[in-house]
């Protein structure tokens, strides 16, 4: 029979990795965020909340927060509405539904760097697919990634293209859990297709919607790869998301104190979002059988 210390031996390796690479780093970030350091100098003088004050006083931080918030709160709802509509068509077990599910899901498992590179070509001014299509219908060339008013929307489009399939797959799983009897009952009551969708489907997949909403917003706040490859945060800071600013502050400018303060703020924002989710979900979502 198992001895008393057996379970500890089984969990210890995983716990050790989590402690070293997740929990201690939180403390390290907190500590570094109240110091001034450039990676090299031998001492790290304590500066109190100076790094936070500098951040909160800077245009750079507020711009970055604004851009990230637009990215998250615009792209996620669009994606979820699209995904639910598509999922309600693709939930059937037919060959055509299967083909489309596969096509939609492929970008999700494709390398983000590849996707970013491919769409850098699609939206490149001189040789890109987007401008070729525009020219074909008689339009003018658009400098998609060089225009501060447009670049963020291009990134939203690219991220939607990448993530849509995941949302669809999750919605399909949610829809499959709704019993057919409910649909039959709604049909007997004489509801049209739209009516059934609004009155039966939408409320019943609410738990799935909340799940997707929360993880998508949290993921959107951490977007980095497509920004780093496609725009570097430019033009003129128009796509300078929080993690891109964090990367620049820490690993290009070597301002470890300010970078750590930014990491702590990002952490605080995401924990707050997660907390709101726990409150909202705890209260509203329990239609499940």
């Amino acid at each position, binding site marked *: 029979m198992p001895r008393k210390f057996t379970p500890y031996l089984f969990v210890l390796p995983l716990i050790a990795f*989590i402690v070293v690479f997740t929990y201690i780093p939180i403390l390290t970030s907190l500590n570094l965020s109240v110091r001034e350091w450039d990676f090299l100098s031998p001492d790290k003088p304590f500066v109190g909340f100076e790094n936070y004050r500098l951040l909160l006083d800077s245009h750079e931080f507020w711009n970055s927060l604004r851009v990230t918030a637009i990215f998250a709160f615009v792209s996620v709802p669009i994606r979820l509405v699209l995904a639910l509509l598509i999922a309600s068509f693709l939930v059937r077990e037919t060959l055509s539904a299967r083909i489309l599910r596969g096509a939609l899901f492929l970008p999700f498992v494709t390398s983000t760097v590849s996707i970013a590179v491919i769409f850098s*070509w699609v939206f490149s001014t001189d040789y890109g*697919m987007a401008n070729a299509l525009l020219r074909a219908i008689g339009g003018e060339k658009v400098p998609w990634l060089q225009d501060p008013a447009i670049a963020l929307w291009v990134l939203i489009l690219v991220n939607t293209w990448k993530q849509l399939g995941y949302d669809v797959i999750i919605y399909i799983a949610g829809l499959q859990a709704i019993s057919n009897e409910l649909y039959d009952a709604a049909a007997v009551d004489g509801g049209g297709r739209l009516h059934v969708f609004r009155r039966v489907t939408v409320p019943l997949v609410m738990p799935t919607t909340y799940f997707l909403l929360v993880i998508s917003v949290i993921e959107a706040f951490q977007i*980095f790869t497509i920004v780093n490859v496609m725009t570097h945060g430019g033009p003129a800071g128009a796509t300078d998301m929080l993690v891109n600013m964090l*990367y620049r502050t820490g690993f290009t400018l070597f301002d470890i104190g300010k970078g750590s303060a930014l990491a702590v703020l990002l*952490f605080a924002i995401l924990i707050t979002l997660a907390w709101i989710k726990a409150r909202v979900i705890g209260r509203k979502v329990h239609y499940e059988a």
Partner: protein
Amino acid sequence: MKPDNPLVTGLALVAGLIFLSPALYSIWMSFQAADAFYAGKLKFTLDNYALAIGQYHFARYLLNSIIVSGLVTVIGITLSTMAAYAFARYEFPGGNFLFGAVIATLMIPSHISLIPNYLTLAKVDLLDTYAGLILPAISNGFAAFFLRQYIRGIPRALDEAAYMDGARPWQVLWRVIVPIAKPAILSMGLYVFITEWNNYIWPLVAVGKEDLYTLQIGLARLYRLNPGEGGIDWPLVMAASTITILPVLIGFVLIERHLVRGITMGAVK
């Protein structure tokens, strides 16, 4: 599966192709000679691949990606399975607390550990090594959580029978639990592999030596640093991009069902 109206199937196929057209076109482009491509002509060639693999070392990057993702998957899934087994089968002091600590990592944004992990690995001289790429990616709270749920669904009577026969706990795990949980372990393994394959920010900060670039880093650098004549050599970049996508694409086509099941189980349960 119902085969439906051929017209509907045809339309679905067309819609799928349009959706994927940027990616499909990039693969097509990778087989075009650059000069012909810019002149608007067609000329098939494998030169872009030869160039990517030879002059730009993409064979090396491919090998690095396989080593790093492979080891992260094998070590990570092993540790997660061990922990999941203990959390599923034992009541022990501190067990709930430790499980809570594992679950909580799902809520913690990985970027808060970016600078600290860089410093930790610098201190033990592991930046610019395979170990430096692999170690911070090993622990996976989601895999541990998911596997624990799965193992709880396996009847305890099977464990008891094995104990009667004189098995030790690790034998029960290896001979009883792992074979039954194999589908879940494979789904999770695949998920971890793809996630690590596509990891970008950590290799970007942890590696400066070109010998250790993964495909993602190599591709991003090639795109940024290699202008062709009068601009970027798109066909070459697309050949490199195709090399980066292909292994995961092949894996996806082979085992789509496993992957989709793994991802949805985690979300809906």
